[in-house]
């Protein structure tokens, strides 16, 4: 299943937030969205999963999602969004219960995703007992449990310290190597974008438009071995964003 954004524009009252956004999210690829703060990249992600409606334009699903996908468009949030009163297991079972998956069927899915995210020993822990990185891994496990056709990740590593971020990024790359998932990855961290993205979409400041779509050709697994090329790409992205970021920083909030 591919996602296609067509002529998407959005405005809150008088403020134009996004304008004429067109791009597609081909299956099996990670597309990174970067842009200065307030450019509407998180809003764009909310349109892609149907949590918000754009004023004009459309997000199209091209092709059927796989039949076994319980929740084709699945989010991973910056603040993890785990229920603090449920254990690791309970948080994952939450998203299965509504599909009528309980008992042994649920346990086998839960065990499977917890093994894939290396969390199986923490099945009965409460979120407050876990570190930030572990919490985000629980959220990733929860997302995997519903077999998404497309992962929508809203700055998933931004709330974590840099060491944890590095570890989790390696996990995300490993996972992609194994499962070739489709993802839209919103970030303001250029390094994350050049490490994870097959395509990087650079948005301009408000009203957000697509400034450039950069395609990164180095395979994901070879990127760490190619620091010079990575650095070059990152520099290039920064040169695209620098002025926008500077200008966006000086804007007054509109709240």
């Amino acid at each position: 299943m591919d996602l296609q954004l067509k002529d998407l524009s959005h405005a809150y009252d008088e403020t134009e937030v996004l304008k004429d956004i067109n791009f597609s999210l081909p299956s099996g690829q990670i597309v990174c969205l970067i842009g200065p703060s307030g450019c509407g990249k998180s809003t764009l992600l909310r349109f892609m999963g149907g949590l918000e409606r754009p004023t004009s334009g459309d997000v199209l699903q091209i092709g059927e999602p796989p039949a076994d996908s319980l929740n084709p468009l699945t989010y991973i949030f910056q603040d993890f969004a785990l229920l603090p009163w449920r254990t690791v297991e309970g948080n994952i079972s939450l998203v299965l219960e509504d599909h009528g998956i309980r008992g042994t069927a649920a346990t086998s899915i839960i065990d499977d995703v917890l093994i894939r995210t290396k969390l199986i020993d923490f099945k009965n822990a409460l979120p407050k007992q876990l570190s930030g990185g572990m919490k985000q891994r629980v959220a990733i496990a929860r997302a995997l449990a519903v077999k998404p056709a497309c992962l929508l990740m809203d700055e998933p590593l931004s709330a974590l310290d840099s060491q944890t971020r590095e570890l989790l990024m390696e996990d995300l790359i490993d996972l992609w190597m194994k499962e070739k998932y489709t993802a839209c990855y919103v970030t303001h961290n250029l390094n994350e974008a050049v490490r994870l993205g097959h395509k990087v979409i650079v948005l301009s400041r408000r009203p957000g438009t697509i400034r450039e779509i950069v395609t990164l050709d180095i395979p994901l697994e070879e990127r760490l071995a190619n620091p010079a090329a990575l650095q070059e790409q990152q520099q290039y992205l920064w040169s695209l964003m620098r002025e926008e970021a500077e200008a966006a920083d000086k804007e007054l909030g509109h709240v």
Partner: protein
Amino acid sequence: MSDKINKTTSPSVPYRGGGFSPRPAKIVAPVLFALIFSLWETGSRLGWISPLILPAPSEAAQALIELFNSGQLFLHLSASLQRLIVGWICGSLLGISFGLAAGLFTLARGGIVPLVAAIFPIPKIALLPLFIIWFGIGEESKIATILFGTFFPTVIAVYGGVDNVDRGLIRMGQSFNLSWWSIVRKIILPGALPAILSGFRISASIGIILLVAAEMIGAEYGIGAYILLAGNLMAMDQLLAGVAILSVLGLIVSWLIGRAEKYFLRWRL
């Protein structure tokens, strides 16, 4: 920088980080209570406090023992507890449903919130005669008073609690396609539970206050009736015994809610 550290000319950095963190100290309360009661008792024994103004604690205790021995304590307590429990449970259930409605639906919020704001501040005791006309002099009017009094604080606590549920969690529920009812049951209600339980603390105390007020009219048994009778007879020792029962009742309720909080909110930090 000199090599030799000179203590007299280089003072240590002054400590400024203390205070603002009171710790629980279990010993303080019993000591304080014992001190107050022993002062009061010695004051009465030595004649500094006239028994007409304030009887000694031992006399109040004596009255309590007499009440127990006569078998009346059980009658009074069971009558009062029955009213309190029925009134409080009905008021809380209604309050939770109305509070939830106000927290979830625009139309309900528009109606319920101003209504609650208008009626909550009315002392329910003032409405007691009205309830007597509506429901008769028997149990119904007393229960109605308690029900009415506990309903409003519960509504306020519940809809405040629902408002404070993390919107991110609700959005997460929607993003995983949870049904509306699942989101209410599994995300909103548990998320509002801390506020609901602290609302219970307030509503239970209001319930006890209203219980006594309601029992002052047309009640044969009940702690309130006992206190009123003692007051009319100027039997200050009995009056104090009744007040002590109420105070213990309040302590028990608060302890029970504390236990409930410990159990239901053990997921909190």
